């Protein structure tokens, strides 16, 4: 597409503008608004660094979800996956040290993702319902394993990953950057990215052109696990504990919001990692702003729901303007 000069109608121009600059505009508006109203408590270098660092929690998990939604599927078990991988990793760390704990967390999450992928592809059940069942199973297992006791993380290496800094910046920012670099490479430079797009656009055509659709999907669900595992490591480190009940509560919602807000079409076939990253920042900037402004947490909850609906509607509008709607 890039080498062909396309003349856009004004409508399409508006649509593509909405896609590329809309998110940056929203981020700047939110940041500007809270900076003006809250001044020093919001607009300072320390807070900005912290907000970007916090956004790794949603941002890293959202990478896998972007892939998944691009193939036209969903995974809503990730909050519980985060908790189960977190508690298992934390308890491993107590016995075998932090490095083992971190590896266990990521490997467990990847295996849980693989399990999801196998269920979805082999049984041909819609992903959302399989993963809804898994949401409860993973959470129940996390409770049962810990007997509802938080697993404390005391290992210095693990604590450093989420709280240390490097070159004056919080360490999670580097981990998030690395994750996005790898993901970007996979999506844009490796065949895997094309396969994902092909499966999302037209899974039957993809299968007829020789792509093993099932394997692509299994890989996507496993990747969700890997990224959720990384997120669990950082989240556990920041909180200093893995709590079977609270860890990852509502995580799937925040992550799906970020992905959809980032411009990935729910129907699959298109999406952008840059958009997802910006959207993860927007979610955190907004949340921090509301908390700093002492907005009632129940109102915040309502706001998160409304944001998701508005984000999807805006996406619809964008595709309608671009003339890609059916």
């Amino acid at each position, binding site marked *: 597409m890039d080498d062909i000069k396309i003349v856009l109608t004004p409508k399409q121009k508006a649509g593509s503008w909405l896609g590329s600059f809309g998110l940056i505009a929203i981020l700047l508006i939110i940041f500007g608004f809270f900076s003006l109203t809250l001044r020093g408590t919001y607009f300072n270098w320390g807070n900005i660094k912290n907000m970007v660092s916090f956004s790794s929690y949603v941002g890293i998990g959202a990478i896998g979800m972007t892939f998944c939604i691009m193939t036209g599927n969903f995974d809503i078990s990730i909050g519980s996956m985060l908790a189960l991988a977190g508690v298992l990793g934390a308890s491993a760390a107590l016995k075998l040290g932090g490095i083992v704990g971190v590896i266990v967390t990521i490997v467990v999450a990847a295996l849980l993702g693989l399990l999801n992928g196998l269920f979805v592809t082999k*049984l041909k*059940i819609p992903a959302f319902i399989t993963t809804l069942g898994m949401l409860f*199973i993973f959470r129940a297992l996390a409770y049962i394993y810990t007997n509802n006791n938080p697993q404390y993380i005391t290992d210095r290496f693990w604590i450093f990953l989420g709280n240390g800094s490097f070159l004056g910046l919080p360490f999670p920012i580097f981990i998030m950057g690395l994750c996005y670099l790898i993901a970007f490479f996979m999506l844009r430079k490796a065949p895997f990215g094309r396969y994902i797009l092909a499966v999302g656009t037209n899974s039957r055509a993809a299968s007829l052109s020789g792509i093993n659709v099932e394997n692509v999907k299994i890989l996507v669900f496993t990747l969700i696990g890997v990224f959720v595992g990384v997120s669990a490591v950082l989240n556990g480190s920041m909180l200093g504990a893995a709590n079977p009940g609270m860890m990852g509560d509502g995580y799937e919602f925040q992550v799906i919001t970020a992905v*959809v807000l980032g411009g990935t079409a729910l129907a699959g076939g298109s999406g952008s990692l840059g958009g997802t990253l910006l959207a993860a920042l927007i979610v955190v900037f907004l949340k921090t702003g509301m908390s700093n402004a002492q907005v009632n947490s129940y109102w915040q909850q309502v706001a998160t729901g409304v944001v998701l609906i508005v984000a999807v509607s805006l996406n619809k509008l964008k595709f309608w303007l671009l003339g890609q709607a059916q």
Partner: protein
Amino acid sequence: MVKFLKLYEKIGIFILIVAASIFLAIVSPNFRNMDTILSIIMQGSYGAIIAFGMTFAITSGGFDLSVEAVMGLTSVIIAMLIPSLGFAGSIIIAVLASCFVGFLNGILITKVGISPLITTLSMQVILRGASLIITNGRQVVISQKSFMSIGASKAFGFLPMPIIYMAVLFAIFYIILNQTTFGRHVAASGSNEQAAKMSGLNISLIKTVVYILVAFSASIVGVIRTSQTLIGIPTMAPGFTLNVLTIAILGGTSLAGGRGNLIGTLFAGIFISMIYYGLNLLNVQIFYQMLAVGITLLFALFIDGLRMKYLETAKIKGIRV
């Protein structure tokens, strides 16, 4: 295999119930008296009633994840209004408000074109927030004791009221789904939306009514539960949506849409309640119930997946199903 799966769709849930009954009758002497059985059916009625609505939603090709939040909303509205309006008035307003939520779901799904997953998931978060705002995060105690008669009394001295509500709603929903044009239209829009649209059905209207029905059934259970505890609870029944979906799918309603099985739903509701009863006998923690429901859902999905797979091959081979 096709025959077996067709048969399962019709009677599978009965086999499960009979097996569970025999098992429970052996391990628990208490199970063999009428009160226990009625109490199990009553416990199952809450999930079953909402699952009637959910069966409609799944038949129409969608589903609703906001039902547990609708229960909470109903509970809160009743608790806040009952001092000024009395219980009849507050129930009517709570149920109407819930129906409006269903209407909103329907509009967002059909007119704005947002997928049922995103719409109802967001609605759940929004309603939970709204319920917490209404009561300011507290649980509200209801002082009118007479309100308790709605959910906690027994007809003829032995039959718990929720069972009667379940029976009445089952009859109504069954007639709507199987005996009316509207019911056929719901199935048509679920089995092939494009075709249904071309034959002149107003899909938006049909689906919107379906989501109103789901919210209505959830609201009824909200009323019953609130009446039993006499407390308005904004965070009522966390995770109950999974129970409801499990019941509907276990009952033989296919996720592919187009086929609703309300009789199966009714008995699946009772079956899930039997599982809970059995787990209580074992004295295990509540987490195991979560685990059991999740695994039951996966089992039901497994059967549903097998059925779809074999029906597809059967179609290709030209076997009439």
